[in-house]
Structure formats: structure tokens, C-alpha cells
């Protein structure tokens, strides 16, 4: 993949996105030089610990970071059109219309005082000139499509009358209501129990196939990535650590941080059931090292890690680590990496 020219079929194309906040303690670079593309009908996973800047990156490009002290630079093209710096009204018609969003906690994502139907209709009518009646019919169809039983009566129910999983289905129905080209899902399954998680991921997979939307799914869970993503961006401390096709990243991860993340997946198929965690805490955004951000926690740290590693690699699998291919081979053949099974 060429780093400069976005592929012509890319729905979303991000180049060198940086987001920083001016705080009393100094400037916080929440996102630092992030670039990736999302192709048509592609599912891109962005993975990292909390605080890695993955959500901020997506929110900021859609104008959802409403902080007077934020500054955003770089380029974000949606269907070839630059969207950074769009006016509020232009952004509004894009949000909910061409880009749908799903959030982490379905329990709080819906306004408690309106029926779910009202809330879907509100979005439909904000982006089209549907009549109220037609919009309600469409809302009922959408609820049926996301697998809510008895949608005709449920459309008039309030959010608190639904379970967590059902509410997330409502949120998905809402996000898809205007047939968006791109769906951004921020930890859509984190707040749900394991069975419901699987159902929701399954639903998203099916809907993606029928609606043909591209999806960016933000998660800290490599399991979710393995389940649904085609390609993966691994982020650490606001910077991309590794980018590549899902199979390559999961099967032959190249960055020590990715190894850690893979080890941190609680896996049902491993008998030991031991929860491996990455030693140390995520780096404070105020004290990101000038060199490799992961170096302080990395067990393979070298002298050169005091300099910032470039994002490089073969074909479409890139990583930002100073380890040579030979060193990685040695490390991966020893038993320390648990990502491989």
C-alpha cells in the first residue's frame, strides 16, 4: 500500500491525523500521526488499551470532540471529500446520514424520555423529508431487521423497557436507518455479557453484508477483531503501532505491544485460562516518551528505542518497532508469545 495515494475505492482515508488538547499541565497529544484507509464494504478494527486515542481519533474527525482547547491536524477524506474543517451544518448532515455511529454503553446511549421509535424517526426525518407515518413504518422495519421481536408494539416502548442487548440492537437500527456508507462502532460489545456480545457481532456482520456499509470498529478486545475485522490498526499512546490484514496481525503479529494484546485475550480454547496482562500501565498522555512510546513497558527494549521508530514493513503489513526480522523470529519461536495457538 502506498502511504501517499489513497486507494480510489477508499470510503474513508485518514492521513497523518493528530489531535492535541491544551491542558493546564501542558499539551496532550491524544492522537499522533495516524493514517489508514477503509475500503468499500471493509471492516477495519482499531484496537488498543483505553487511553490509546482510538476513540478520540474517530470522534475528532466527525466533529464530536467539543472541547475549546482541541486542535486537529492532518487530512480526513470521506468518499474523496476532505471533511476536516467542514462547517457545523455540513458535518451534521454527514453524521447520522452518511456515517452512522454505535456506542459502548447501550444503557445510556438513548434519551430516556422518548420512545425508541420516536428517536429513530427523529434521525430519519433529520436526513430526509419522510412523513412521520412513513418514518414510523421504516423504524418498525428497522427494528424487525435487527431482530427485535414484536417490533410493531416495541416501537412505542421506552429505552428502559429494553434489556441491554436489545437496546444495543435499537442503537444499531438507528445507526443504519439512513443507510450510511460508513458505520463507526465504538466498543459496541464491551458493556454486554458474553452471549449477547456474540449475537451483536453476528448481527453487525450480517447487516454489513446486506447494507454494504464499511465498518470501523473500535475495541480493546482482540477477540472481537478476530471475529469481525478484515484489517486491523493497533494503536498505542495515540500512535499506530501496527497495521495490517486481520489474519496477518493476529497470526503473525510483529509489534511487542500487539503480542501483549494477543496474550491479554482471555481465550476459551486455552486450557490454562490464565489472564495475561501487559506489565506496567498505559503511558500517561502527558509523558509520552520522545522515542518509542511503548519502550518503558517493552521487555525487548534496546538503545535505539530512544528514537521514534517509523511505520514500515512489507506489502500491507506495517509496524513501528526497531526489532529486526531476525530478532522477531527468535522471540516468536521461544514460548513467550502466547498469541499463536
Amino acid at each position, binding site marked *: 500500500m502506498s502511504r501517499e495515494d489513497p486507494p480510489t475505492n477508499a470510503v474513508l482515508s485518514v492521513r497523518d491525523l493528530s489531535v492535541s488538547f491544551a491542558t493546564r499541565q501542558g499539551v496532550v497529544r491524544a492522537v499522533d500521526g495516524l493514517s489508514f484507509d477503509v475500503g468499500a464494504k471493509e471492516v477495519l478494527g482499531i484496537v488498543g488499551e483505553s487511553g490509546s486515542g482510538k476513540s478520540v481519533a474517530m470522534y475528532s474527525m466527525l466533529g464530536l470532540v467539543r472541547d475549546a482547547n482541541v486542535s486537529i491536524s492532518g487530512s480526513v477524506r470521506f468518499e474523496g471529500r476532505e471533511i476536516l474543517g467542514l462547517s457545523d*451544518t455540513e458535518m451534521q448532515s454527514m453524521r447520522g446520514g452518511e456515517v452512522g455511529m454505535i456506542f459502548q454503553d447501550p444503557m445510556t446511549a438513548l434519551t430516556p424520555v422518548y420512545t425508541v421509535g420516536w428517536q429513530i424517526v427523529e434521525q430519519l426525518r433529520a436526513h430526509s423529508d419522510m412523513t412521520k407515518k412513513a418514518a414510523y413504518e421504516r423504524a418498525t422495519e428497522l427494528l424487525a431487521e435487527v431482530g427485535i421481536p414484536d417490533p410493531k408494539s416495541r416501537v412505542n416502548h421506552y429505552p428502559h*423497557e429494553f434489556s441491554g442487548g436489545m437496546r444495543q440492537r435499537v442503537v444499531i437500527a438507528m445507526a443504519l436507518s439512513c443507510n450510511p456508507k460508513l458505520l463507526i462502532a465504538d466498543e459496541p460489545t464491551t458493556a454486554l455479557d458474553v452471549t449477547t456480545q456474540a449475537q451483536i457481532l453476528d448481527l453487525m456482520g450480517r447487516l454489513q453484508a446486506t447494507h454494504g456499509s464499511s465498518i470501523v470498529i473500535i475495541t480493546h478486545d482482540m477477540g472481537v477483531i478476530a471475529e469481525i475485522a478484515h484489517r486491523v490498526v493497533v494503536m498505542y499512546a495515540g500512535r499506530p503501532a501496527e497495521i495490517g490484514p486481520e489474519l496477518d496481525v493476529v497470526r503473525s503479529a510483529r509489534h511487542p505491544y500487539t503480542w501483549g494484546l494477543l496474550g491479554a485475550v482471555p481465550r476459551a480454547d486455552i486450557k490454562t485460562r490464565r489472564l495475561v496482562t501487559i506489565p506496567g500501565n498505559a503511558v500517561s498522555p502527558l509523558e509520552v516518551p520522545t522515542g518509542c512510546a511503548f519502550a518503558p513497558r517493552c521487555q525487548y527494549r534496546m538503545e535505539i528505542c530512544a528514537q521514534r521508530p517509523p511505520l514500515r514493513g512489507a506489502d500491507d503489513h506495517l509496524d513501528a518497532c526497531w526489532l529486526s526480522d531476525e530478532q522477531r523470529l527468535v522471540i516468536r519461536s521461544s514460548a513467550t508469545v502466547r498469541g499463536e495457538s
Partner: protein
Amino acid sequence: MLRFIVKRFSSAVLVMFTISVLVFLIFFATPGVNPASRIAGRSASPAVLRHVAKEFGLNRPLPIRYGLMMFHLFIKQDLTSYVNIGDKIIPQITAAAPITLSLIFGAVVIWLFVGISGGVIAAKNKGKFIDPLVMFFGIAAISIPVYWLGQMVLLVTQGGLHSSIFAWIPNGGYVSLTQNPWQWALHLLFPWLTLASLYAGIYARVLRGELINNMNEDYIRTARAKGLSERRILYRHALRCSLISIVSLFGLDVGVLVGGAALLTEVVFGLQGVGWLTYQGLQNLDLPLIMGCVMYGAFFVVLASAVVDVLYAYIDPRIRVVA
């Protein structure tokens, strides 16, 4: 919803019963106080005392005494004053009620309007010049005695300036709504403003806090992600949810308003409503009058807060199911 209303009003009846028992105990069973001589007044003759004892069954068991009190208050409504001998109390209260209701109604309209718009403006301009102003007004509102504010308003509007810039203000008194709506509003304007200004400050401050909290809620982010305009997000989502706590606060304040602030406002402005009647009762130690005003006032408050609760359930669907 209907079940909720029935439930809420039956609990209101229960509350009214306990309040009446409490009033009864205070007026008729306070240790060390002879109720007959309290009711009959300071220099009552033995004959009057005997009459009072018979009327309220003062030598009969407590439940019968309670029943007699309620009978005179609500069923036969023949409670009489022993200070202004022969004056029937209940007709006085019903005659005074429209004045009190007018005062409260107008004040509530102004206070909710000013309070809500003040809160919205402060929240919208968080951190700007107007915001601390509203905040300070909120502090002032819970620190100013309402009757004193009323006196200051009187001093300004009826004092030296009455002959010049405030010449359009009537010299006090009351004109009923049916008689002349314009004069009704004009006579009540400053009492309304006095009463409303304090509550408006409190409500603006509370609403500001609620709005700012609600604007950080997840559902506001969802609303933005839906592509709604900021205006719609503020009014249809954040404000709509913030109104829930405003209404619940309102339910509590109705009681404080009717029993306290409205009473004092009537006294200061010389509006002859139920509060003014209570004041007269207190000045003359006219116990039957005070008892009547307290009981009718308290019952009104209980019913009014039941109505507010129904309104509350109407705007917060979560309550309907729980109840």
C-alpha cells in the same frame, strides 16, 4: 398511567389524614395547654368555655375529639371565631382563596419562565459573563427573606417614586380577575415579581447545573451522532431531561410557597388572601381561624403536589412503570 394517578391520589388522602391528626394533636393535645381556653381566647367567660368544651367534645375520648374537629372543619363547616364573635371561618377562607390562587398562579408562571430561560442562557454561556451572574442570583435568591424583599419593592414603588415613575401602579389592594383582568394583573404585578424572583434564581441555578450535567451524558453524544442540530439537542434532549428534576423540585416547593412565601407576600402587600387571614389569626390569637387556614392550606398543598407528581410521571416515563 391511570393506575399511577389513582395510586398517587390515594396516598395523598392518607397524607392528608396524617396531617389532620398532627394538627389535631398540636391544637388539642399539647401537654400543659388547656385547649378550651386557647380556642375561646384570653378573657372568655365560663359559659363560653363550656360551649367550646361541648362543641369540640373536650371531655370525650381523643378519637371523638378528632372526629368533631374534622366535622366542624369540613362537613358542617361551621367553625366559628371567638375573637370576632360569630364569624364563620370556612366561608372566609373560601372567599380569600381566589386571591391566594391568583398570587401563586402568576408567580409560578413568571418564576418557571424566568428560571428556565435563565438556566438555559447560563448553561449555553458557561464560563462567560452571564453565567456567574445567574449563579450569584441563585445564591442571593436563597438568602433574601421574601417579606423583606416585598417591603423594599413597596418602598421603591409606593414610596417617593410613586408620584413619578411608578405612578401607574395602583395603591395596593386587589381586583378580581372576573371584574377586570387588566387591573387584576396590574394589582398583582409586583407581588408576583417579588415572589417569583427568588424562586426564579434558585431554578435557574439548579437548571444550569442539570443542563451542564445532561450535556455530558452519552445520549447527547448519540444525538450528535444522529446529525441533529445543536439547538435541537439542547432543547429537545438535554432540556427535556433536565425538566424532570425541575418538576420534582417544583413539587417540593409548592408546599414551601403556599405555606410560607405566599403567606408572607400577602401580609406585606396587604393582599387579603388565606395567608393574610392566617396572619390576622396570629395577631389576634384566633385559634379556630389559624386551624382552619393551616388545615385547608396543608390539604391544598398535598393535592397540588400530587398533581405535580402526576405531571412528573408524565414527563419521566421511567416513573410510571416503577409506581
